[in-house]
């Protein structure tokens, strides 16, 4: 799952070092367009349904946060 996620992220923003960054949202590294595109990709790839309530910084600040979110949503299905 991690590999797939990294692929999506790198394609979206090749200039960002996703392993290192811990504050992707708080520091404004990912902007609103990135988020929307990312959510679309994640929804398609992992067959989940990320909605607006999930768009909290703590869910997207770091790759690990995103993995946790994906896992949680998959479990709920």
């Amino acid at each position, binding site marked *: 799952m991690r590999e797939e996620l990294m692929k999506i992220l790198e394609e979206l923003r090749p200039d960002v070092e996703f392993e290192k960054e811990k504050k992707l949202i708080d520091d404004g590294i990912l902007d609103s367009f990135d988020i929307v595109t990312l959510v679309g990709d994640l929804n398609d790839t992992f067959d989940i349904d990320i909605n607006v*309530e999930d768009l909290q910084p703590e869910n997207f600040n770091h790759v690990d946060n995103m993995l946790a979110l994906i896992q949680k949503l998959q479990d709920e299905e």
Partner: protein
Amino acid sequence: MAFVSMKFLFFLLVVCSGYFIMPMKLKWVWLLICSYTFYLLNDVRAAAFIIFTTVITYITGRILGQINSDQKTYLKENKTVLSREEKKCFKAKNITKKKRTLFTAILANLGLLVFLKYFNFFAGNINAVLSNLSLQMEVPMLNLLLPLGISFYTLQALGYLIDVYRDKYEPDRNLAKFALFLSFFPQIIQGPIARYNQLAHQLYEPHKFEYKRVAFGAQLILWGFMKKLIIADRLAPFVDEIFNNYISYQGITLFLGALAYGFQVYTDFSGGMDIARGAAQILGIDIAVNFERPYFARSISEFWRRWHITLGSWMKDYVFYPLALSKGFNKLGKRARNIFGNYIGKILPTFLSMFIVFLLVGVWHGSSWKYVAYGVWNGVFISGSILLEPVYEKMTATLKINTKCFSWGFFQAIRTIFLCSIGRFFSRGVSCMAALSMIKHTFTVFNPWVLTDYSFYELGINERNMIVLVAMGLVLLVVGIMQERGIHIREKIAEQNLYFRWLVYLGALAVLLIFGVYGNGLTSTVFIYQQF
């Protein structure tokens, strides 16, 4: 009561003194009393509206919160008993209930805002159509008063409701405290639009007098006064002259007017924000920053992330994301993907949502076609930049432009200021037609001599005042550059020697007292009219 007035300073003195004297438990009550006093002093008749919004929002919040907590309790208690399907069904029913409740409240609050603000606009346009069709009917224009701050507190209330709907936090359980959240006086006139989870607890918690914090607040207020009285009000006669008599001017003169307006509205608005923030800081409350050196922005998108930040951020969380991530837009995107290809399909939801957001931002500013045009202008640029991003990348690569160097950044900033200034024709122009005419005449006439023959010194700012403007402008620029680098100006000054600090504070006060545009003395305004 305007912020930039002796009355407000006196009011603030009373509020702050009272606040620090009050016992801990009653401090927030004092703030509530002061906020409503401030509101009534400004607008007695309209108090009913803010009370209406407060009560409706409070009750709706409680209902939504109740549904949320009931759901949690029920699911927890019956975790093992219910099947997955039953849980889903239960959740879905609740969502419908919540949606209905939320929708009613939004209709009430937003409907009120839309009615009061835009009824005459719609009526006027309908009447225009009717008369074009030679029909004798007419929608009456109503004499509606626009309550103070309604555009701000309504959004603030809606944000709160949507957050409670999303179960982001528990609703407020105290109507009086909630009333304070919506009516807090530093914010009521021109924002910022606060978030409940950021502001509310600060308002309710008591804050003690702390010398450094109070001093910082006072300094910020002084800075706000300086921006408004030295720059904004000094630019006003020039801007007024150009925009109110636009027919007499053309070419670069018109553009200078728009450019000047951009600086006028920035220093006016951000000066007011500084006063609001300073006042709140004295009381121990941090309110959101609304401006972050917007003229350093490298693109219109970035500009809107630095200008009226809380409005943009509100739109992002409560309009943009819900739209862009909605099922409807999702489907639209998929269909577009089939027709126009992968790229378009992917960006279409973003593109459309952004456009709608900026249309709303434009219209939020006022009820006139020019604001619609303003919204469209910004929307086109921002959406366009999303669409054309790959094109730009290719262009800069082919032309071998280094996009990481200072000069490129500088070029981008200048380009952004230029594009923004054109947008200003819409926001300051006396009407949509006037704005369009001004834009047309700006670009169809090329008169660079206007810059060199000093004729613009006749239009409301003479040489001496220009020197003051430029000097203060440079100060703003230096402060901006320092802030951009993360330096906290007031802290920095506080670190210096006593004598230097005092020189700065007293010097700033002296500059404000001498060069501020106030009083009935001979000002540039008089100069314009003296020629007629």
